[in-house]
């Protein structure tokens, strides 16, 4: 068990190290001289002297390896450099917006659970009935709606036409509902289908038949015995979907002017604020890899059949 954990953690660190190298190199391979591009986008005339001074400032004149090691030690100490635009430390900027993105993602997960659990379970229990078909059609629709459009429509109908919700921004629970719904709907659609399939699989198992033969209430069979096992494959998929949610926050934050990292990075992309993009990618990778690591652990905990030593 410990050996397994250690192996996983080493793998995690290795992956993050490679990602950091890629993130570091990415700035060096962008088309054109990065120093010139950066100066130009900041409205500074790229003369020979200004380029030279800027290169020195960024340490661009040193060998690549030295640059990387210096950069990495900085990053490990939390120093991602300064934003080209605001001039403030990038970590401070990103850290300041991180809770907003986390709140939105958590909201998305809650919406996903609230929608997909009942729809998925009922669709499996009432297989091939009108309810099942309705569930399928709703899931297909939910998976087909572009989230940015859904967000705009919700704002238009529920915030502008009827003022049920605030139009934009973050603050109360009222602010969170529309963005969280927009973010979670697509994922809820996928999950309701996944849960239905997994539930049907479990309901075919012998132990469910035993439970029925014992005369247990159907309700308790479904919710206590079947659901627990049906959730296992669903939880495994959660690691990957969490990534989709993280990616989705970029779009949703833009639509709802939610003050999170996603909107910040979109702005950074247009102003070519590379340190911000770098920090964003690294933070996202770290969050994503860590969540997948945790999901892996939970998965093994939930399903004792899986051997810690052998599972790859």
């Amino acid at each position, binding site marked *: 068990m410990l050996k397994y954990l250690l192996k996983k953690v080493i793998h995690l660190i290795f*992956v*993050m190290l*490679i*990602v950091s190298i*890629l993130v570091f190199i*990415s*700035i060096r391979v*962008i*088309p054109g001289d990065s120093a010139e591009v950066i100066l130009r986008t900041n409205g500074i005339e790229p003369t020979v002297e200004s380029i030279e001074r800027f290169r020195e400032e960024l340490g661009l004149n040193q060998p690549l390896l030295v640059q990387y090691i210096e950069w990495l030690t900085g990053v490990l100490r939390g120093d991602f450099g300064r934003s080209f635009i605001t001039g403030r430390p990038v970590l401070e900027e990103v850290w300041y917006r991180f809770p907003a993105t986390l709140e939105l993602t958590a909201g998305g997960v809650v919406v996903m659970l609230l929608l997909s659990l009942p729809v998925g379970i009922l669709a499996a229990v009432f297989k*091939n009935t009108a309810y*099942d078909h309705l569930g*399928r*059609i709703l899931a*297909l*629709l939910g*998976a*087909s*709606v*572009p*989230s*940015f*459009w859904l967000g*705009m*429509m919700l704002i*238009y109908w529920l915030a*502008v036409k009827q003022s049920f919700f605030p139009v934009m921004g973050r603050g109360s629970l009222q602010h969170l509902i529309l963005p969280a719904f927009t973010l979670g709907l697509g994922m809820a659609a996928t999950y309701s289908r996944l849960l239905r*399939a997994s539930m*049907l*699989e479990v309901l075919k198992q012998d132990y469910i038949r035993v439970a029925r033969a014992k005369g247990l209430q159907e309700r308790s069979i479904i919710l206590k015995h079947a659901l627990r096992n049906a959730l296992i494959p669903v939880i495994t998929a959660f690691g990957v979907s*969490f*990534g*989709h949610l*993280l*990616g*989705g926050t*970029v*779009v949703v934050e*833009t*639509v709802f002017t939610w003050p999170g990292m996603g909107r910040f*990075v*979109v702005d*950074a*992309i*247009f102003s070519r604020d*590379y340190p911000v*993009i770098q920090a*964003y*990618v690294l933070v*996202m*990778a770290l969050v*994503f*890899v860590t969540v997948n690591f945790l999901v892996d652990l939970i998965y093994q905990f939930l399903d004792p059949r899986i051997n810690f030593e*052998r599972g*790859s």
Partner: protein
Amino acid sequence: MKGEVEMEVSEEIQQSLQRNIEKVDKVDFNLQLFNDKLAILGLIIILSIVILGALAPYLAPYDPIQVNLTNRLQAPNQEFVFGTDHLGRCLFSRVLFGVRTSLAIPFFVLLASILISILLGTMSGYLGGKIDELIMGVINILLALPSLVLALAIAGLLGPSLLNLMIALVATYWVNYARIIRGMVISIKQNEYILAAKACGASEIRIIVKHILPNIISPIIVLATLDMGYIILSVSSLSFLGLGAQPPTAEWGAMLNAARSYFQLAPWLMFFPGMAILLVVLGFNLLGDGLRDVFDPNELV
């Protein structure tokens, strides 16, 4: 080393892949698919939209990029069925021409991803050894990032343009297919007919092209259909963020981006392009859902 490779592609996955591969050969899936009314509906939606897009120059009443400020922001009326945008362009014509960009870009992204993944996935699975380790290493690193974040980062670094958007998405999507193809190749490789072909002195290339690739193509095409809706959404999302199609190109995501500043004033600007995306993605999802039912006996309705 070999043990590790085999462990990664768990037997379960191999078996199900094998089942699917066999199914493609055996099941007359046309028959099953056409029993599924929703899948047919999906196919009809896709075909009608493709035809509309192909005939756009004949059907569109106006030039989609012709600016006419005197007609700006007109609500849908008899002359302009979908209304006009902030530059007075006919929205109906723009949505119609938008079919071309909004479908062609995802199509080429998918095509390029599949070609790259067939090349790398087959190499990885068939040759094994160091090459396999290298390719799998790259794949595992790319998987450390959520796909949309990765695409966003690449498109962001390269700068906003349609071509860069396509590069970013291909760089993101080939990974999934390559992993699946590698698993399929490893499982096919163990078949006796491959051994027989080897014994007959067939060259490696011949074995790959004649005996392995034909087994891979059909399941991959099915997978691609399943993913098409998702890729259309990704393309339009990135375009919506301003990273894809640039004005004045008529592309649905970019049109919605432009509509953002006016949508409270002119909701039709957002309604029609969004409906177009919804409809075409729904078409692919309906078809894909039907295909999945054919391939996965567990999900038969």
